[in-house]
C-alpha cells in the first residue's frame, strides 16, 4: 500500500474557532432525516474508493480547497456544521455536538429543560436530546455510550471527510462504553 504524505498547510481558521469571528455554537436541528443520515453513513465510510478519492484530493491544494468548501456548504446547511474538522456526527445521531453552547462531546449537560430545551437557548432543543432520539430511532443509541476524546483545536476549518478517510480521526472515540477496558486517554 502506498502511503500518501500530505503536507497540511497552516491556514487561518475560517469556520469559527470559539471566541473568534465565525459561527457561534447554537443548537441546530438537522435538516436531514435520521434514516437518510444513516444511509449516508454507509456511503461515506472510509472504504477503498473513498480512501483513494481522499488521497487524490489531498495531492492538490486547489482540489482540497474545493472539496472542503463543498463539505462546508452541505454540512452547514444540513447539520449547522462549524467545521471543527473532526466530525462526531456518525455516533451522535447526526445531531452536531458543536452546536451545544458548551460544545459537549459526551452527552447533554444537567441543564436541559423539562421539555428538552437548551439551557442557554431556551427556544432551541438540546442537540443531545435530538441526537438521542435520532440514534434510538435507527437502533444506534449505544453509539452515544462511546467515550469521546477531547478534540484537536488545530483542525478547525479542515475537511473532516478527508481526515476520516485518511485515518486521522481513528482515535476520536472508543469502540464501546469503555466499562470493561478502562481505555486510556491517549496522547494527541
Amino acid at each position, binding site marked *: 500500500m502506498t502511503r500518501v504524505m500530505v503536507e497540511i498547510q497552516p491556514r487561518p481558521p475560517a469556520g469559527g474557532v*470559539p*471566541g473568534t469571528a465565525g459561527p457561534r455554537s447554537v443548537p441546530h436541528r438537522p435538516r436531514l432525516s435520521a434514516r437518510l443520515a444513516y444511509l449516508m453513513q454507509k456511503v461515506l465510510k472510509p472504504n477503498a474508493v473513498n480512501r483513494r478519492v481522499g488521497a487524490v484530493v489531498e495531492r492538490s491544494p486547489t482540489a482540497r480547497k474545493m472539496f472542503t468548501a463543498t463539505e462546508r456548504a452541505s454540512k452547514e446547511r444540513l447539520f449547522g456544521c462549524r467545521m471543527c474538522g473532526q466530525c462526531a456526527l456518525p455516533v451522535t445521531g447526526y445531531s452536531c455536538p458543536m452546536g451545544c*453552547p*458548551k*460544545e*459537549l*462531546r*459526551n*452527552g*447533554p*449537560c*444537567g*441543564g*436541559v*429543560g*423539562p*421539555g*428538552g430545551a437548551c*439551557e*442557554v437557548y431556551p427556544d432551541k432543543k*438540546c442537540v*443531545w*436530546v435530538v441526537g*438521542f*432520539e435520532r440514534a*434510538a430511532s435507527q437502533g444506534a*443509541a449505544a453509539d*452515544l*455510550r462511546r*467515550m*469521546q*476524546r*477531547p478534540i484537536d*483545536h488545530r483542525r478547525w476549518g479542515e475537511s473532516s471527510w478527508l481526515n476520516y478517510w485518511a485515518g486521522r480521526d481513528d482515535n476520536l472515540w472508543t469502540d464501546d*462504553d*469503555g*466499562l470493561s477496558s*478502562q*481505555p*486510556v*486517554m*491517549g*496522547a*494527541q
Partner: protein
Amino acid sequence: MSTLRDRLATGEFTITAELSPPRGASAAAMLTRAELLRGWVDAVNITDNQGSHVRLSSWAGALAVKQSGTIEPIMQMTCRDRNRIALQSDLLGAGAHGIENLLFMSGDHPKFGDHPGAKPVFDMDSTQLTWTARTMRDEAKLISGKELNPAPRFFIGAVENPFAPPLEYRAQRAAKKIAAGAQFIQTQYVFDIDVFRRWVTDLGELGVLDRCFILAGVGVIRSVRMLDFLSSGRVPGVQIPEPVVRRLRGVAPDDVGAEGALLAAEVIAAVRDLPGVSGVHLLTAGYEKQTPELLRMAGIDRSALVGRALAGKSSDAH
C-alpha cells in the same frame, strides 16, 4: 488520604455538603460556616465560581478549609473557565497540597453569571476531565503523554442530573463518567423519588453500582421567594415537581421554611433505604446552622462523629 473514601467504603451513610467561597480576598467567612458543619458532614464541596459568578477560587478555598482542619474539602472543578493546560496544572497543584477529593462538572454557561460576556472555554467536557484526572493518577501521565513525577493521589467525583431529558440516557451518561474514572457521583436536587429510583435501577442494570458511590442531592426550600425562584424554570437543571410546589404553597408563607425542611428530611429518609445509594449531598449552602436539626429530623445520628470531631479540635489546637 481521603477520609471521604474511607467513610464511603465502610458502608456507613455518608453526608457531604456545599460551601461557596466568598466574593472577597478572605476565606474567613467560609471557615466560620465550615465550623458549623464540623462532624455533621463527612466532606464539603468547595464550589468553583458557582453560577458563573466570580468568587474566591475553589482551589484556594479547598486549601483553606483543609488547613483549618474543620472538614475534608472536595474541590469542584468546572470546564467553563480553563483549557486543558490550566486544568491539568491546577490538578497537579491540588495533588501537591493533598487535596484528593475532586468533583468535575461541565459548569454553568457564563451567560448566567456576573460576566455574561466572558469567553466560554469548554476545551474539555466533564467526562474528558474525569478521564484526564484518572490518567494523571493511574498512568502517571498528562494527556499529552508526558510523564508525571510523582503522580497525584485523587478520589474522583462527578455529577449527574437524573431528572433532565433524555431520562433514558442519564444513567448511561453517568456510566460513561464511571468508565472515565468517577468513583463517586453527587446528583442534582432529588424531589422526585420515583425518577431517582429508576435512575439508580438503571445504573444497577449497567453494572456500575459496585464501582461508584452514589450521593443523592438534597435541598431545602426555605421560603416562598426561594420556591418562586427554583420553580421559575430559570435555574439551570432545577425542576420542582408539581406536587412539591402544591404542598409548599398549601401552608402559610411563614411555615414554608419548616415544611421545606420536613420535605428534605423525608427525602433523606427515603433515599437512605434505596439499595445502591451511599448517602446524601446537601445542596444547602447558607443553611449551615440548621443542618444538624435537619439531619436529626431525618433520623440520622451523628453524635459520636460530632463528639469525636470536637474532641479532635481541642486536642490538635495549634
